[in-house]
């Protein structure tokens, strides 16, 4: 009997998972349908580079449908809601699709409207974001015109996609203004609701050090309550103010709106509660989640979706075969952090182990938690890997799904048990 797997979302996680499943399951045994509201797949890591003129917007977008293997059906429609009771997805175009297995891969939604004033006076004139294509392009023009003053990079609240991206933006801004010879006329400030530059202590020290070295002021525990574009200032809930001439803000994130319309599926922010090791939804055994849509305590990042892919595909096959699930996902996250001047850092961590120094993926490899030219080249090479290895659902050679320990220095991880080798 043919079973139907519906994958909601044709982004990083949905695409790589559908492709993996198509390879693993006979066409006779399973039909795979990917649903998305549009047919534009954006290479999101490239958005960071647009404002600095280092990437062209059109080079980051490809049709979603073309990233899917033969034998995966693509449906272009928004989702109205999921009816968990009846194993059915209701599409906005009025059709309903029943499923044997549902995969939620619709990621995170940007919610700038949830912060007072963010989209008010000054939006796209003095207030920008680089988390979506059009504002990133508008920001490129504003940066090119900017000839001095206060540039504030601000995170509204966690969780956000790629938590290092606003830091990278700050580092690149320092580089950009130096290159233009006007760095001394620009005051750079990084504003975060966290109590440090980053959540993980070891990494926080390194990244705070970089901010200091580059002359970027750090303002912590700042929960922005209002963006006042007219008087050009951020106002926190506890009454502090940060003035700006140009603000680059990361808006609040939540799950997709259809999650809120689907009883029992999501939490209060619209993310989907899952078992953090099997990625099975807590709501139903035949619902799995991949990528940013899940409520797991890991970064919302493409690398996480990639590492999850292997486990989710295996668990869907096991679920269909009536076998016990594999609890193999360890929270593995891997991020290049662009630091300007052709250099980058690399961090690699999981649920239990913080980013540490050493080399990745083994003793001979890219340097961890340290600026290097090699890591910058790694970040550039990743664009090719994304389209040709990651989206097709292939394992990247030498980079395992579970976090590698060889090559890592154990310093700073006192809770870490003995490494396996």
């Amino acid at each position, binding site marked *: 009997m043919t079973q139907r797997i519906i994958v909601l979302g044709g982004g990083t996680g949905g695409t790589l998972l559908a492709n993996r499943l198509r390879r693993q399951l006979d066409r006779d045994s399973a039909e795979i349908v990917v649903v998305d509201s549009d047919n534009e797949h954006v290479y999101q890591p490239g958005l960071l580079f647009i404002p600095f003129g280092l990437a062209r917007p059109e080079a980051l977008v490809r049709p979603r449908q073309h990233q899917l293997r033969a034998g995966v059906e693509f449906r272009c429609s928004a989702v109205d809601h999921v009816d968990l009771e009846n194993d059915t997805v209701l599409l906005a175009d009025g059709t309903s699709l029943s499923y044997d297995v549902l995969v939620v891969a619709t990621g995170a939604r940007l919610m700038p409207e949830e912060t007072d004033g963010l989209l008010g006076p000054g939006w796209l004139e003095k207030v920008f974001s680089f988390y979506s294509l059009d504002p990133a392009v508008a920001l490129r023009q504003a940066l090119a015109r900017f000839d001095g003053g206060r540039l504030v990079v601000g995170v509204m*609240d*966690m*969780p956000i996609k790629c*938590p290092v991206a606003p830091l990278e933006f700050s580092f690149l801004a320092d580089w950009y203004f130096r290159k233009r010879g006007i760095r001394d006329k620009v005051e750079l400030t990084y504003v975060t*609701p*966290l*109590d440090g530059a980053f*959540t*993980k202590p070891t990494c926080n020290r390194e990244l705070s050090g970089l901010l200091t070295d580059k002359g970027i002021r750090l303002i912590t*525990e700042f*929960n922005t*309550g209002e963006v006042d574009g007219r008087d050009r200032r951020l106002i926190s*809930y*506890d009454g502090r103010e940060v003035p700006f001439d140009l603000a680059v803000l990361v808006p*609040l994130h939540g799950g997709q709106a259809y999650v809120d319309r689907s009883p029992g599926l999501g939490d*209060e*922010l619209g993310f989907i509660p899952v078992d953090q090791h099997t990625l099975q939804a807590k709501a139903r055994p035949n619902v799995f989640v991949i990528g940013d849509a899940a409520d797991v*305590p*890991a*970064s919302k990042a493409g690398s996480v979706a990639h590492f999850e892919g292997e486990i989710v595909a295996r668990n869907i096959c096991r679920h269909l075969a009536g076998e016990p699930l594999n609890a193999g996902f360890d929270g593995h*996250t891997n991020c290049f952090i662009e630091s300007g001047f052709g250099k980058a850092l690399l961090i690699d961590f999981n649920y239990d182990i913080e980013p540490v120094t050493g080399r990745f993926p083994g003793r001979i490899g890219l340097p961890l938690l340290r600026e290097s030219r090699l890591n910058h080249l790694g970040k550039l090479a990743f664009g090719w890997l994304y389209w040709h290895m990651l989206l097709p659902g292939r394992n990247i050679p030498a980079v395992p799904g579970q976090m590698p320990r060889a090559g890592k220095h154990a310093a700073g991880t006192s809770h870490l048990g003995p490494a396996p080798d």
Partner: protein
Amino acid sequence: MPTARYAGADVCVNDEGFFTEPGQWTEAMAPEIASQEGIGELTDRHWQVIKFMRHQYEAKGTGPTVRVLGKTSGVTIKELYEMFPKGPAKIAAKIAGIPKPRGCI
């Protein structure tokens, strides 16, 4: 592991004063912890938030963030900051005797 003494009992806390064993907390300890944090009197609104924090921790294993508190506790973020000026999620968690809310990663 450091300890603190509230309402006549020793409890385990971390370096920042957050309970590491929430089972040791009793309601009688809340006013003392609050006063250490500069909150003079716990009103019914404070108690609404404190009980909500305990409930969320029991249900989810971590205290809510300010944003989730504002969406679900019945108290707006603005009012939460008036009640817990030094940061609602952290201070309310401390008074409610639960571990420091897990920052999102």
